[in-house]
């Protein structure tokens, strides 16, 4: 149904818009409470790890990260001793329950036997040692999240008994909402209203105990369409926990939210609560927009727009923009490419009866080229797209996703009803700023 874009001169070179696998691994580790992390790497990789901790907004008092700071002689002669000493020092200083020992490109390529080393020194340290090989070349941030999640599997205890109304939430951080934890909170609140218990979030602010008991959940919910599918599959194979709601868009926009809530209600026998949530949500959005945003109708109707996003938010945006705001999504660019997100998008486009230009796994060059080649009036994306749009003469750029140019003090969900309003508020303000006159003939006013 869609017209997939093909780009020239992109077979060997890439202008990345995503971090590497190390960042993904670190992003999972950063989501677990009371653990330390030893990075076996040159010191620059610590910046990548810091980005992951930043994304969880973890205060530095809670960052227990050490780096072996590998130099040339370490690469040539090996640095096992250095690593052993640092692990011991980290254990003594931080006194965490577990330490993740993470090897990055350098350690990965020289073949440091992290598993063997961890086994060897485990009797001498109090913390449980968990090795992860995470060379940045093993993929992008989403691949890294899968690696990080995979490393958690051995920590999850087998349990034949499942708690009836309970779920694990997977990969909430694989979401370009700059305050993605607000989306997570919205989901947890909804589950609470449906009397569904959250067993473990994998991983954000998660205790080791919650992680150990993740095997008791009745279902897994993936909060991303960019990462976590492989982990969810392994959870089904190893622990018999099914993945639910993974074949529909995430709750972005009214209809998607309603569909997601209904599906959740049906699964957990809470249809009445779901219907009530939908009614209340719809009423609230309509009431607020009626009072404060009537202009969204003439403003946005038939505006040709590009969506440059992750699949998590982007798939939901298609219906929101087309059906609810009467815009025309002419171009859809996703930073990731999973078979699952392709299938969901394909179904959505078919259902809506539209055939925009589409590209998956895009880099900076491809985003810029597509924005240049496809006729659009607006783009919804991040700060990257905002600056590209400026250069290309696309007047309207909605800076909604990470990395964003906005200072955000309060967490704002994009999922759910308030989430839709949060996005529309940014869109409304960015629209307004676009059309404010910037070239003023002051002399004309002075002569008055």
């Amino acid at each position, binding site marked *: 149904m869609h017209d997939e874009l093909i780009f020239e*001169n*992109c*077979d*060997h*070179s*890439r*202008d*990345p*818009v*995503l*971090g*590497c*696998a190390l960042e993904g691994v670190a992003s999972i580790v950063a989501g677990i409470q009371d653990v330390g992390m030893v990075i076996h*790497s*040159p*010191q*620059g*990789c*610590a*910046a*990548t790890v810091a*980005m992951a901790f930043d994304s969880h907004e973890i*205060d*530095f*008092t809670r960052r*227990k*990260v*050490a*780096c072996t*700071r590998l*130099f*040339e002689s*370490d*690469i040539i002669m090996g640095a096992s001793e250095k690593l052993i000493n*640092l692990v011991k*020092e*980290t254990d003594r*200083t*931080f006194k965490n329950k577990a330490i993740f020992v993470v090897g990055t*490109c*350098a350690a990965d*390529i*020289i073949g440091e036997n992290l598993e063997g080393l961890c086994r060897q020194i485990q009797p001498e340290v109090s913390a449980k040692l968990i090795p992860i090989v995470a*060379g*940045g*070349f*093993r*993929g*992008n941030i989403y691949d890294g999240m899968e690696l990080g999640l995979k490393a958690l599997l051995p920590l999850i205890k087998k349990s034949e008994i499942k708690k009836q109304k309970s779920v694990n939430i997977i990969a909430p951080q694989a979401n370009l909402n700059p305050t993605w934890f607000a989306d997570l909170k919205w989901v947890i609140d909804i589950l609470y209203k449906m009397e569904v218990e959250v067993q473990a979030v994998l991983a954000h602010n998660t205790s080791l105990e919650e992680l150990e008991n993740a095997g008791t959940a009745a279902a897994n919910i993936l909060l991303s369409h960019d990462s976590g599918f492989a982990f969810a599959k392994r959870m089904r194979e190893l622990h018999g926990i099914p993945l639910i709601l993974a074949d529909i868009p995430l709750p972005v926009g009214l209809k998607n939210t309603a569909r997601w809530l209904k599906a959740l209600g049906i699964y957990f026998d809470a249809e009445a609560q779901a219907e009530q949530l939908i009614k209340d949500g719809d009423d609230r959005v309509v009431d607020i927009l009626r009072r404060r945003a009537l202009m969204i109708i003439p403003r946005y109707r038939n505006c040709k727009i590009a969506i440059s996003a992750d699949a998590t938010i982007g798939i939901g945006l298609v219906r929101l923009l087309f059906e609810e705001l009467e815009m025309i999504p002419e171009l859809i660019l996703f930073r990731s490419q999973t078979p699952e997100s392709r299938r969901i998008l394909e179904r959505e486009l078919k259902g809506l009866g539209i055939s925009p230009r589409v590209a998956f796994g895009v880099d*900076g*060059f491809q985003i810029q080229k597509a924005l240049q080649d496809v006729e659009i009036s607006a783009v919804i994306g991040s*700060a*990257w797209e905002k*600056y*590209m749009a400026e*250069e290309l003469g696309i007047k309207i750029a909605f800076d909604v996703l*990470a*990395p*964003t*140019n906005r200072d955000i003090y309060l967490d704002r969900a994009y999922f759910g009803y308030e989430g839709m309003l949060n996005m529309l508020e940014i869109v409304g303000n960015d629209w307004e700023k676009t059309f404010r006159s910037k070239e003023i003939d002051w002399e004309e006013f002075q002569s008055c």
Partner: protein
Amino acid sequence: MSESIADSIVFHGHLGELYRLAKEGKIKTGLQGSHTRPCKFWTATKILSGIKNSVILTHGPSGCAYGVKKTYKLTNCRNSGSMYEPVVSTNMDEEKVIYGGEKELKGAIMEVDRKYHPEIIFVATSCATGIIGDNVDAIVEKMRAGIHAKLMTIHCEGFAGEYRSGFDLVYRQLTKLMAPPSPDMKLKLADSVNIVGGKMGPERTEVDTDVKELVRMIEGIGARVNAVIAGNCSLEQIRRAPNVAVNCALCLDIGYAIGHAMLEEFGTPLNSTILPYGVSATEKWLQGAAKYLVMEESAAAFMSREYDAVRNEFEAAKKFLQGKIAIVEGHDAIKSLSIAHMLERDFGMRVVIYNFHPWSTEARETSIDYLLETGMDPEILITKGTLAFGKYESMRQTENELLSFIGGFSPENTVYFGSSLSFPHIPVVDLNAILNRPRFGYRGALKVAKCIQTALEYSFRPRSWLTKRIVFPQNAGFASAQSLTPKLGQDLPDCTVYAERRRGKCMMS
């Protein structure tokens, strides 16, 4: 000195002594495992980011390129209005790590040339390609003939050197893009200088930055600036750079590498002094430039005019500060040494640099040598917190140690030059704030004088309980100013708004 601070002291003496002990291996100069600085790859690409119409092609996995792009390029878009600029990667994956990435590199060079049409492609190596041993030089050599852009290899594997080595490497490499001086061009640029030691890209247009102040002063004495290398300079500016009358180092340590290389290679004179904080250092910097420009007279007239404009407030501050004690935060070595120089030379204060990490004695050797040669040997105090493993947790410790140290000094006689994220009971002068720019030159000296004056005038006001609690949350154990930032947050001026990370939240400074 109180007993508690005496227990915490690791070193208390003069810079020269610390320097000697470090050289003799009698004091540990390594950074703790909990401390990391940008690697050689990051520092190299920071300089490369300051060259217009160039593309950095990183041969390695994409993460290294993305980190640099998000930190430097996006920041330039946000702060300085730059266009979107790529940082390209050969995107090495597992297969290429095993079988080699030479084919990818060849393809990538051709694609970058066709896609972006840059004047030059910098091929920057990464840890991965450095270890697997791809013959990057040979590939680049072979490719030269077939593409339009110039090509230059930068061997900046992250493991291949300390933080500063990336700066030095790129600056030395840039000299290879320079044409030897010619009589004609020397004549054309006889009234010109290069400011060397810049990095990252264009200056912010809405901020009176230090670099812009240097340019204003150079122009004030009747000369011109050929290029700020590498602060948004073109390849053509770099090419003709050896013809200028003199290279003026922006930052003594970082500018020295390229200035020295150009001196050796092309005989371009080098004017290298400490950062021009304060009148005395500014005059040295200007006189050094004027000597080679043969503009001593106009420089003297300019300096006189400039001083007259700040005289009253500057001398009032001087009168007040003379003989008083200045505690200078030492986390940023060069800045602390430069401020120490200003406070001692301009204001006649007794300076104590607090928590100058011994690591800096190696990383900032050039500045220290210069300072000692000019007869300055400030007092240094290093407490246990600075050297402790798990720095972030220990910063409450350093704050307490600072308060304990300062506890013995009266607020009437002592001023603290450092971050306003510290809360001593004496007046705090924070020169990093965006409103306190420029800090260089006479206008900078006036800013400093005004900062001091304001800090003193309002020293009756207790520090905000709100800001103090933001920095040191209640019941947060070891929480600290450092806990707000991945690295030395207070080193970062708030005009360096690193993209996405919000103010000061970037460790790749």
